[in-house]
């Protein structure tokens, strides 16, 4: 039997996850173990790290070397925020956003988490729930990662004690309740020895739940996307103006959430004009309906003035079109927020000038207390009020990640300085 018979490619789902934890928690070892035991390490990679392990005087292969950094990182003792790694099993294809766990952690984790379906929070069984674990849980809730796995690692160093595991689970669960985090799975493991990562091992017989890999392969992710609210930010207007397509005017973009069918009524934001969907055009032909996250081209019945930055929605359950909104902001830049300055906000396909008119509070990510603040520094998270030059079609981030998120750009040096998540409008 050839390999292709037992690997089904056609309907493989894509799961993106992030690992939160520091090197001390065994994060690199865990990733190495996942890749190694799922047979995703190539021979030339394995021989390279075997060679390095021996050169450094180690007896067994150090799997954490697989995620070793670049020359620039080693030389300067810095870590680059996110590295992406890929592996696949017959059931799913995986993308790991691997973020280093040193300083700058908030910035790194928010960046990696923004596209993740799932986060693995690593806890050292000997140390239990630390401030750091609380911070990771808070950030996961802030960025709205749908699924959380608490991996209680280094169980080999606590004699695989069930009591230790259960105490940590209880602590975490009490804490998580306050964050309204749902969908939490707890797994005891030893990444070093491979227990409960891909293989079950024979030391954790008292644990009846899934291994980490079983869980990654089976956690349902098709509900992660908002299918209720149709949101179509226009990216590009297609006007071929050829002889046979003289009057073709197609609005190109990606369905960020929801779905659309031919004949559906649509509203154009911010203008508020309405029309109906005439055709849904793709390279592979016209189709009757399309769903998120497909990229398609839409034509409408009426001649309306629509351009990039506008958004097509269905007339019921529309986003709020506004010049002022509140948001949670994660500051990413070494240059602190300057409330006197104008910034640019890029929200879906629209970029507008913005003023951060007020800082409500800064969150102490360790205690989660709110503090008064007159600026936000790198890695700070705070609630702010923004005023934008042109109206944006906003949904609360919690309801719709695509239309509730934005980035802040420094107009002078063009850097991305903050990530924003829109709060529900106040009544």
């Amino acid at each position, binding site marked *: 039997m050839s390999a292709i018979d037992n690997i089904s490619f056609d309907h493989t789902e894509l799961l993106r996850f992030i690992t939160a934890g520091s090197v001390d928690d065994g994060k690199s070892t865990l990733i190495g173990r996942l890749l190694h035991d799922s047979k995703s390490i190539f021979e030339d990679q394995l021989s390279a790290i075997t060679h390095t392990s021996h050169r450094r005087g180690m007896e067994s292969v150090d799997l954490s070397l697989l995620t070793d950094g670049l020359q620039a990182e080693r030389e300067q003792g810095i870590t680059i925020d996110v590295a992406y790694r890929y592996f696949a099993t017959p059931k799913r294809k995986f993308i790991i956003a691997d973020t280093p766990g040193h300083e700058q952690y908030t910035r790194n984790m928010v960046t990696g988490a923004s596209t993740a379906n799932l986060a693995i929070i690593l806890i050292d069984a000997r140390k239990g729930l630390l401030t750091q674990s609380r911070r990771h849980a808070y950030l996961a809730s802030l960025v709205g990662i749908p699924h959380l796995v608490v991996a209680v690692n280094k169980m080999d160093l606590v004699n695989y004690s069930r009591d230790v595991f259960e105490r940590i689970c209880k602590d975490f669960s009490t804490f998580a309740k306050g964050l309204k985090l749902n969908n939490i799975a707890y797994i005891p493991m030893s990444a070093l020895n491979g227990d409960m990562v891909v293989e079950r091992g024979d030391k954790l017989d008292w644990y009846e739940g899934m291994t980490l890999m079983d869980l990654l392969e089976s956690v349902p992710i098709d509900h992660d996307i908002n299918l209720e609210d149709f949101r179509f930010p226009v990216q590009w207007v297609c006007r071929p103006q050829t002889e046979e397509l003289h009057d073709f005017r197609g609005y190109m973009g990606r369905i960020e959430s929801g779905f659309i069918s031919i004949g559906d009524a649509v509203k154009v934001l911010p203008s508020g004009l309405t029309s109906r969907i005439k055709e849904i055009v793709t390279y592979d032909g016209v189709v009757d*309906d399309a769903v998120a996250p497909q990229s398609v081209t839409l034509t409408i019945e009426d001649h309306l003035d629509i351009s990039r930055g506008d958004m097509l929605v269905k007339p019921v359950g529309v986003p709020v079109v506004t010049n002022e909104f509140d948001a949670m902001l994660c500051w990413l830049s070494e240059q602190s927020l300057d409330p006197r300055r104008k910034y640019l906000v890029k929200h879906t396909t629209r970029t507008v000038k913005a003023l951060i008119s007020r800082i409500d509070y800064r969150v102490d990510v360790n205690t*989660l207390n709110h503090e008064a603040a007159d600026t936000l520094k790198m890695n700070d998270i705070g609630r702010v009020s923004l005023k934008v030059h042109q109206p944006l079609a906003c949904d609360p981030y919690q309801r719709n990640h695509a239309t509730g998120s934005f980035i802040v750009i420094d107009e002078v040096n063009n850097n991305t300085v903050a990530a924003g998540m829109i709060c529900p409008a106040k009544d």
Partner: protein
Amino acid sequence: MEILNEMEESVSPDPGFVTKTEPVAIKRRIARHLGHLDALESEAIHIMREVAAECANPALLFSGGKDSIVMLRLAEKAFRPGRFPFPLLHVDTGHNFPEVIEFRDRRVKQLGERLIVRSMEDSIRQGRVVLRSENQSRNPFQSVTLLDAIAEFCFDACIGGARRDEEKARAKERIFSFRDEFGQWDPKNQRPELWDIYNTRVHPGENIRVFPISNWTELDVWEYIAREELEVPHIYFAHTRDVIRRGTGLLPLSHLVQPVEGEKVENLMVRFRTVGDMSCTCPVESSAVNVGEIITETAITRITERGATRMDDQTSDASMERRKKEGYF
């Protein structure tokens, strides 16, 4: 402990929401139709449209290799029935496999799009590139010709088919990768990239490299080629060829590569996994004569694409990282 903030307040769905199709039915349809290739394809189309809309003067790099063949199909999916809103650009090392160049020209003609070719031979003639020897690998020097072309046409964005699974320096590179006025990549000073909101802004003279298939693996590329029934140059399929065993790899015999003392020429059944500079691109032994068989081999292969096929990436642990900092793709 005061931990609640407004982000965590629950929002109830709009009660007035009416649809003619039940969401459940739609969900089933998603489960049926949208696999990982659809997700990757849609992401790539979205990225290409962002470049077209936000950059003043982009170009799409096309070499005739499998990744750039996939890129052309994605561009068709992104912009048809319109024309591509950018020209194609090939940086010609002069060390090409003739089949690939023939394929490149035929494909461009089929598409009816504009191709710009800038050649390293010209850079060498102008003294912009100085080689140690005539037959030396030209991969490292592509950057010079590429940067010259960027300057000549004032391109502010170059779209390329690089993937993060290829190499560890690529694994840490953004989808929109900012380059300074010398075309250099600064790994520790990259712009944070969140969700799929891309910062495309540059000052005059600076540019960005955009990698729409960053999240694809070698296997994804072949599966997509199979699904889309894309034609690829014949040298990707197993064929008999005169090769020389050198180090851990095989090198194709050509006017650039001749046996040195102690080496002998063998005639083996091989295929290429990449088609780059002929002097350093190694074929692998294979019997895969069609895309399906290549997918099977790729799914079970135990050696990375670059590990198997690029002599120049093996020279040092950090060779790709160094080349990228110098402006390489």
